[in-house]
């Protein structure tokens, strides 16, 4: 018997999703440097990003990250297509809001928004810093690439601030359902434990949403 796609694909989504959740914790923690006063933030942020670029370990993690994102999207796409095929005709009237949350029913929509964000986000930073596309990145007095200034410049544009801040909302929603659902997909079924996980998912989603949402605004007003 071959692998059951109904379960294998979901397991892949859950595993990659949980890995991405861990990544977000690290990402947000580091980004909190941006909240510090300018004179502290510039050296700290730039030396941190140099560390990321130069560490071979981080390199491996980065590839894992790219793979996780791609696999997460790939399998989510397969699951969504299969699930649509399983329900070819929709109800004329459906009060689904009375039995389930909007986010849980629209993970695909939320995920697509996040994917669009990731593409733009990578274009803003990764493309410029790592690929050297666009205007060259200056160096700071310590000889590190001045990633801080790249960030600062971007967030002087109100449109980008609004975009980044607003995109934290679908992210939070996606994480809230994704985290607790991921645990169930991986076979965590203890009822009391599931209640705790649900609460942790909510707290986690709020922290990620608020954190990623506030940083661009704070930087804008610096």
């Amino acid at each position, binding site marked *: 018997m071959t692998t059951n796609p109904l379960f294998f694909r979901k397991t892949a989504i859950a595993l990659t999703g949980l890995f991405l959740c861990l990544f977000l914790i690290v990402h947000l923690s580091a980004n909190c440097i941006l909240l510090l006063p300018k004179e502290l933030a510039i050296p700290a942020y730039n030396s941190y990003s140099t560390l990321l670029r130069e560490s071979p370990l981080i390199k491996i993690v980065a590839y894992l990250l790219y793979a996780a994102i791609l696999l997460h999207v790939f399998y989510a796409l397969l699951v969504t297509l299969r699930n649509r095929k399983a329900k070819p005709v929709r109800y004329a009237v459906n009060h689904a809001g*009375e039995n389930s949350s909007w986010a849980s029913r629209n993970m695909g929509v939320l995920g697509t928004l996040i994917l669009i964000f990731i593409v733009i986000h990578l274009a803003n930073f990764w493309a410029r810093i790592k690929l050297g596309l666009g205007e060259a990145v200056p160096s700071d007095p310590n000889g590190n690439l001045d990633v801080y200034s790249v960030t600062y410049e971007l967030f002087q544009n109100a449109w980008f601030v609004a975009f980044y801040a607003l995109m934290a909302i679908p992210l939070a929603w996606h994480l809230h359902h994704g985290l607790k659902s991921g645990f169930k997909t991986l076979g965590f079924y203890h009822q009391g434990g599931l209640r705790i996980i649900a609460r942790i998912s909510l707290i986690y989603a709020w922290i990620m949403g608020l954190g990623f949402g506030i940083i661009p605004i704070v930087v804008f007003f610096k």
Partner: protein
Amino acid sequence: MQVTFKIWRQNGPKDKGKFESYPVDDLTDDMSFLEALDHLNERLVVAGKQVIAFEYDCREGICGQCGIFINGRAHGPHDHMTTCQLHMRSFKDGDTIVVEPWRAASFPIIKDLVVDRSAFDRIIEKGAYISSQTGTAPEANAILIPKSVADKAMDAAACIGCGACVATCKNSSAALFTAAKINHLNRLPQGKAEQHTRVKEMTWQMNLEGFGSCTFTGACEVECPEGISISNIAELNARLLKSKISGS
């Protein structure tokens, strides 16, 4: 009491089908929803028209044969209730009630509101039993089963097989149904001998039948007349993983 039923009519699996409206009066609060449909059907007969085909049998919420999507909810507006337990007092005078059949690729429509749920039976065929023959049983108290285990098995075993879980699920996933049956048997000592093949075979059949993947929206446990918890699906996932690891 007067309401307008807007009912899906479809004369066979290949027919396109459409909604038709039927104003009905002379209803009372304490009529069940199905009795209101009976009432409508009697009017149709007197008018020389074909009756609306819909399913029911026990009309006391246990056989699982009734199942209609009513005003945007499986089995109507209440949680944990079958269609036959729904009464007209849940609606207001003058309401328009939209009545649709279960929608799922694996539940093809036979006629009007009647769908074919035999996919469930085929999942059952793949292992929802204990393979010992009549006459081979040991003394009933020879194997002690702690109350908590028996109670948990019973929680899952309560499934009536109505298909509301599939109907309400946006993915038409049969995970709650399949999980309930597997967990019922796998939780009991008698079911242990075949636990791994049972999980693999039944979930594989679920795949073959064209049901979708569970994405844990949680709609199924709200609509389930027996209130079977969605944690059963998580437990199923664990059991499937375990069966993979055990390799049997």
